């Protein structure tokens, strides 16, 4: 049965079963992964799946289920399950589905994987590291082609179709010389093709070089209050607090420190963050929100002013605030006007942090964690790689205390980030 036929049949059965409002998404997905472990290519994995996601509302009670690879009997059983979940639940006027919108089809990315390119790119990066950085242990390296084709329908007449694909490339590595070992480092990116060498994407070649010198580390000279230059690879660890506190759960529960802060200055004017799932430059975005709206790009933080919460239709109905025009993710941070070199030269005492391994910050934004793959910076120069170094501070203050944002930007496909320098960090 085609996706469209299956989705229409499911929606028909949902409305016949007595749901007042119903939503159905049928997704055919395929994954082709070619990966290496311990420096050798050793796995080709192909997965196919068909997922059916059903949501029903009856008497203002709501439930959802997800089943896969289902035949007629399993779909009937799933709908019966959904009815039981709804009947056993409680009513809430805030439950709803998206209103009717003009039908639309969306597509991006190649339609088929190119195994030879996937193999060659990974083989090439393994060869390159062996030849150029012999102390690096490539724990994992892989290229994955992901494709998902979805038909999204609801009982208000929503009818969206999407066909999206991309390549995801990921690597994990550490350096080892004798008994000395560097910290693990991992990164990745998404792309519509594999034309570029892996080492030339996402700053990877420089990360390799840094890993080799991070075999020999030492602690910072003494505890100090100083600056922190956050690399693009770990910026999300520090902006994630804000992004995680402007969603349904925190705003409905009222525990978000950002409640009542819309259109107010919550961060430095040097900082602007956008969520861009539909931009032509985004790889791995989405076109339809989880509650059935056509997705749009949105600015979250405009020169430090909070411009949008990330509320679903339900969250918006519960709080009386506006629904976000997308479901979040695909975060792009604007570059600044200072080069990374100048940022380092302007640093009196601080750390350049490559990876943050930290505990979950508390609701006030207090954080602490270990600076991994990081460097001590003093008098405008990177001094040496560090170990056993803890950084701590407050994430709300951190966003307000942005000293500089680099003009260089690293693209990861699904996101892009610059280097961001902040002050007021305790380093110990």
């Amino acid at each position, binding site marked *: 049965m085609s996706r469209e036929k299956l989705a229409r049949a499911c929606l028909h059965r949902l409305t016949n079963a007595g749901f007042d409002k119903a939503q159905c998404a049928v997704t055919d997905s395929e994954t082709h992964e070619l990966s290496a472990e311990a420096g050798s290519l050793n*796995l080709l994995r192909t997965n196919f799946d068909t*997922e059916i996601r059903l949501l029903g509302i009856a008497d203002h009670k*709501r439930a959802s289920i*997800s089943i896969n690879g289902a035949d007629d009997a399993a779909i009937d059983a799933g709908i019966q399950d959904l009815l039981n979940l709804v009947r056993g639940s409680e009513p809430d006027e805030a439950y709803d589905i998206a209103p009717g919108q003009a039908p639309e089809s969306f597509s991006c990315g190649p339609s088929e994987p190119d195994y030879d390119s996937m193999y060659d790119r990974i083989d090439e990066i393994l060869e390159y590291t062996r030849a150029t950085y012999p102390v690096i242990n490539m724990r994992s390296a892989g290229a994955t082609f992901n494709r998902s084709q979805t038909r999204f329908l609801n009982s208000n007449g929503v009818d969206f179709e999407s066909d999206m694909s991309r390549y995801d490339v990921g690597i994990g590595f550490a350096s080892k010389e004798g008994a000395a070992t560097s910290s693990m480092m991992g990164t990745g990116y998404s792309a519509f093709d594999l034309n570029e060498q892996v080492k030339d994407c996402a700053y990877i070649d420089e990360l390799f070089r840094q890993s080799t010198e991070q075999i020999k580390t030492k602690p910072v000279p003494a505890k100090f209050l100083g600056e922190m230059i956050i690399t693009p690879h770990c910026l999300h660890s520090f902006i994630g607090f804000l992004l995680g506190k402007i969603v349904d759960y925190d705003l409905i529960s009222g525990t978000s420190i950002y409640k009542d802060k819309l259109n107010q200055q919550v961060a430095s004017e040097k900082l602007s963050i956008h969520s861009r799932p539909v931009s032509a430059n985004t790889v791995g975005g989405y076109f339809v929100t989880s509650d059935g709206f056509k997705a749009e790009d949105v600015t979250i933080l405009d020169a430090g002013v909070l411009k949008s919460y990330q509320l679903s239709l339900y969250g918006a109905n519960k709080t009386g605030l506006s629904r976000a025009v997308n479901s979040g993710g695909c975060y792009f941070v604007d570059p600044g006007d200072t080069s990374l070199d100048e940022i380092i030269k302007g640093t009196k005492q601080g750390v350049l942090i490559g990876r943050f391994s930290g505990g979950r910050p508390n609701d006030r934004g207090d954080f602490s964690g270990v600076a991994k793959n990081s460097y001590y910076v003093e008098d405008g120069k990177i001094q040496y790689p560090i170990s056993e170094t803890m950084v701590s501070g407050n994430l709300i203050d951190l966003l307000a205390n942005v000293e500089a944002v680099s003009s260089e930007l690293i693209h990861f496909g699904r996101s892009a980030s610059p280097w961001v320098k902040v002050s007021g960090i305790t380093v110990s």
Partner: protein
Amino acid sequence: MPDTHQAITDIDLHTYSNLFSSYTELRLQENRSQQIALLNGEVFSNTKNSGKGVSARVYAQGVWGFASEPKLTSDAIHNTIEAATRNARFMAARAGREDAALPVIRASLNSDFTTDKPRINQQELLAFLKKIDAHITRSYSDLTSRTVVLQCLDMEKKFYNSEGSSGHNITTRTLIRVSLAANNSDGEPIELRHAFGGLGQFEDVFENPEELYPEIEELYQHLCNKKSAVIAVSGYHDVIFDTDLAGILAHEAIGHTTEADLVRAGSVAGDYLGQQVAPEMVTLVDFANTLAGETLPVPVYMDDEGVESKDTVIIDKGILKRFMHNKETAEYFETAPTGNARAYEFSDEPLVRMRNTAILPGTDKIADMIASIEDGYYLMRPSNGQADTTSEFMFGVQLGYEIKHGKLSHAITDTTISGVAFDMLKEITMISDQMTWSCAGMCGKKQLIPVGLGGPAIKTKVYIGGQ
């Protein structure tokens, strides 16, 4: 004849062995999960998911081909074996090694942790949660927010491989997660979370909501103490890890560094095999399924490569004795597999994963351990954790207290602790005589997987983040 969907129980995997051309694993799997979340008494989430399918993995000349399909039909099983074989041949043609081989092992083990009791329905589940929520509302008027979340996960796997290993195993887990939030004395939000439950389906894990009330009361009292919490002094301190934290210590700080795939990737533990890495009082084991006659939180009897799961004694009386292996790492390190190869979903390949990891109890009393510290911290509940090939670890701590002059003092605000595992082990000076297990653990390493974490209380030294 139409190619009809079948139940996992009804499918005889042996009949497909004629399609095997080299070492082949065939696995049918269904993960069934349910979540009901109450946020301040209202239904925030009400979902059920089922993901099922067939996977095959084929080993040829040192490389793997893997394939999966979401259908439990004869055609799908045929197609999946053929696709995995094709994938293995593609890899072998380009990266194969003639000398590659895997250890030959045969096992046949079954287990079933589904309930024998009649299943209760959605209304009864919700009523159970609402009763807990009503108790919290009635008892604690100063909370700003509360959540009560039910999470159920059943994992059913049927396995057969070309060496004749076979098994049908159903592992179940039911948790109720409670979180309480309040404002501290400065009007700032504070929160504490706790997970109840463990191995088994709802009917076997929970009987009466009232059984949870004493521990919820304890959680609330800690939250009250946290209202006037002080910030820990950053630096290197004497600490006691309570049992919950000792479990994550065993898993994150030591366990991950001794997974053989990470050892092969350069983990420092590789240099320490056979060496004294801790005082003699320290023994650390990754248990397969049972300890002292008791079934552990995540019992694994046969792994996803068809190897009987056995306990792996990683540190024995202070000496690093063994790593955790799958078949491939066992071959590489010229040892026997330990039954640690586990996959999360039907579409996942097995990886080296822990099962139930714990440091064994010692002889000390917790009261004596606290009394032995002049200025330090008693760390009780973790929030998250990470490990590294260097053995440098980090845990978030959501609940802890100062120890001043041998006595518990103020609660501390959320903090992070870190250390180098193989240094920290040497600093262990006391281990309590009682241990507990947590079944709420979910470990992430390419895939998620449920894990059991256990331990006694431990006295050692670590770095604490703070002011």
